[in-house]
């Protein structure tokens, strides 16, 4: 880069106590989480939870009422921010500008030299397979190709951190794979990557870590395994041949949370005794399956969101 600034790949991105109000409505309420260097973090939460507001604050498009964003341990200034890569939720490029001119312009606004900008534009257009449309106006591209150019716009200045708001929405499966590959590749160079998504299977597959927010604050954060371990604690899949589910009610604290072909899904309290559950099952009939359940992220998400709702004091 022409103007070296604080922050190189390999640094971590921290959101610390971000608070933002719109009039009477609180969009963010002391949101904090960290994206480590080289980590791909999935940022999930129901609509209106504050994901877009948080990302806009990271990019300096919005200013927080309180809290700060740190990169490499230091509060982010304009020069550092210019080296972040961003894909806004509402996609947008200059419709009448040619693809190459547009990407070169954006790269230069982010601080790249003219030569770097040209080189990177060519490289990304090749990589994302839109090189043959390099001389076309953006408005003449198909939606799929516009998406690719939009992604190139987030990458063309070799960003030291990537913040992508719903990058997978609207992509076909091939596009999803291509984007997933690019994100993993950027992370491998030490860049912290954070993206929001409603496609939880995708988040589960691609992300090293997940942050779940609701009503403007964090309700769960950790690696996928950590969250699984947490959410999966006390969750058992029990298949008893020919038995109805009444038997489970005899075990203190046990709660049936699901029923399917694979058997009942039973949750035990933290101090619950799975041996008691097993004995009760054996008492009810022939046990075909008894195993701790690996929860899917979507289950965790539902659970966490529900718990969070439960936490909100009535009134």
């Amino acid at each position, binding site marked *: 880069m022409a103007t070296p600034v604080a922050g190189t790949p390999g640094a971590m991105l921290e959101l610390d106590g971000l608070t933002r109000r719109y009039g009477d409505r609180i969009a963010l309420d002391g949101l904090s989480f960290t994206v480590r260097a080289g980590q791909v973090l999935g940022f999930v939460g129901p609509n209106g939870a504050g994901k877009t507001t948080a990302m806009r604050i990271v990019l300096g498009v*919005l200013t927080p009422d309180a809290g700060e964003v740190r990169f490499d341990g230091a509060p982010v200034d304009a020069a550092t921010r210019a080296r972040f890569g*961003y894909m*806004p939720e509402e996609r947008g490029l200059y419709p009448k500008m040619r693809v190459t*001119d547009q990407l070169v312009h954006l790269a230069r*606004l982010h601080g790249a030299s003219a030569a770097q900008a040209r080189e990177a534009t060519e490289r990304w257009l090749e990589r994302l397979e839109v090189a043959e449309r390099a001389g076309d106006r953006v408005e003449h591209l198909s939606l799929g190709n516009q998406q690719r150019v939009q992604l190139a716009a987030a990458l063309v200045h070799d960003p030291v951190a990537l913040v992508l708001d719903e990058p997978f929405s609207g992509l076909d499966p091939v596009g999803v794979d291509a984007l997933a590959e690019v994100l993993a590749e950027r992370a491998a160079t030490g860049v912290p990557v954070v993206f929001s998504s409603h496609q939880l299977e995708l988040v589960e597959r691609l992300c090293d870590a997940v942050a779940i927010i609701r009503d403007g604050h964090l309700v769960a954060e950790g690696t996928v395994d950590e969250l699984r371990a947490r959410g999966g604690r006390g969750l058992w899949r029990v298949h008893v041949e020919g038995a109805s589910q009444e038997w489970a009610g005899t075990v203190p604290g046990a709660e049936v949370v699901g029923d399917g072909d694979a058997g009942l899904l039973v949750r035990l309290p933290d101090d619950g005794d799975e041996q008691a559950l097993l004995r009760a099952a054996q008492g009810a009939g022939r046990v075909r399956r008894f195993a701790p359940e690996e929860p899917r992220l979507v289950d965790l998400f539902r659970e966490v969101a529900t718990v969070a709702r439960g936490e909100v004091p009535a009134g």
Partner: protein
Amino acid sequence: MRGHNAIWLVARRELVERSRERSFIIGTIVTLVILAGVIVVPELLGDDGPDEARVAVVSPAGEEVVQAAGAAQGATGLRVIGVPVADEQAARAALEDEEADAALVGDAPRIVVVEELEDDLETALQQASAGVRAATALEQAGADAEQRQAVLAPPPLEVAPLEPTDKGDDELLIITFIALFLLYVQLIGNGYMISSGIVEEKASRVVELLLSAIRPRQLLAGKALGIGLLGIGQLLVIGVFGAGLALAVGALEVPAGAVGALGVVLVSFALGYAFYATLFAVAGALVPRQEELQSSSTPLIFLLIAAFFVSFQVIDDPDGTLGVVLGFVPPCAPLVLPVRIIGGEPALWEIVGGVIVLLAATAALVALAARVYSNAILRTGSSVKLREALSGGGGR
């Protein structure tokens, strides 16, 4: 990225992208063609030399009259050319063949025409005939050549205007008008470009991507700078083309006046553009789509039209009270001051004072526009009320 660098990058994009637009190129060419027409057509009409009339002559007496008419060409501006023919019949033939406009026939010549005699030619021939008769009479009375000259061709009466005019005054009036018109068109055109450029970025949502790299003020300043430079460049091309063409066809008697006027126009544009750009930026920042831009920019267009019309009044009396006063009214000053400088003789303090007031107003508006723009630019969904944008109830 350093601030001025970002501003320059944005400005350069505006310059490059807009100067490539077909509408811009066509607009510039149309302006040049119209200007060429305004300059060249009067020259073509006015410079085809004095009118000519051909008169067939049969008798020596007729020839004498035609010669006298030819000598007195200056009086009517009509050049009378004698066409000697053999006899009256030949004269009639010449008339019918349109080889002659009139014929003088007989020793005491009659004027023979096909249908009607043109007024100019009649005046020339009658005056010439009278002169010939008077000369003959004087000669017979014994007057010598000098005396005859004194009687028949006395020195012309001197004309003494109460308000002497300069040779280049008409020309100056035309230059003033062209300058005013160019300024007006350019201010409206480039002002609207700012509004629609801002709306383009809002409507296409690209603005959020831009603002993740640079500050709103840098984006606004760069846009205004780029479009302003484009306007100055376009004016320069039009001005140099116009002045060059006028010189080439000899339409300018006072070339220095035109060159000076061009300089005044460029400086006035820069000042006027800076003032109006802030207002057009506000008009653009408040609306989400091009369709709604008309409602927010209409008051501004009317303001410019009003300024144009009052400045038009000032052309007639550049140093009158109206002109002096309006020179201190910021929305009018960018049009009134150049009219006064080019067409009149304003006092230096009037110009300097007017410019200072204009600059002060611009500085105040820049602060206001930057605030409104920053507050409203990310509110891409619907129109923003000016009061809300000013109070900062917006996105930032």
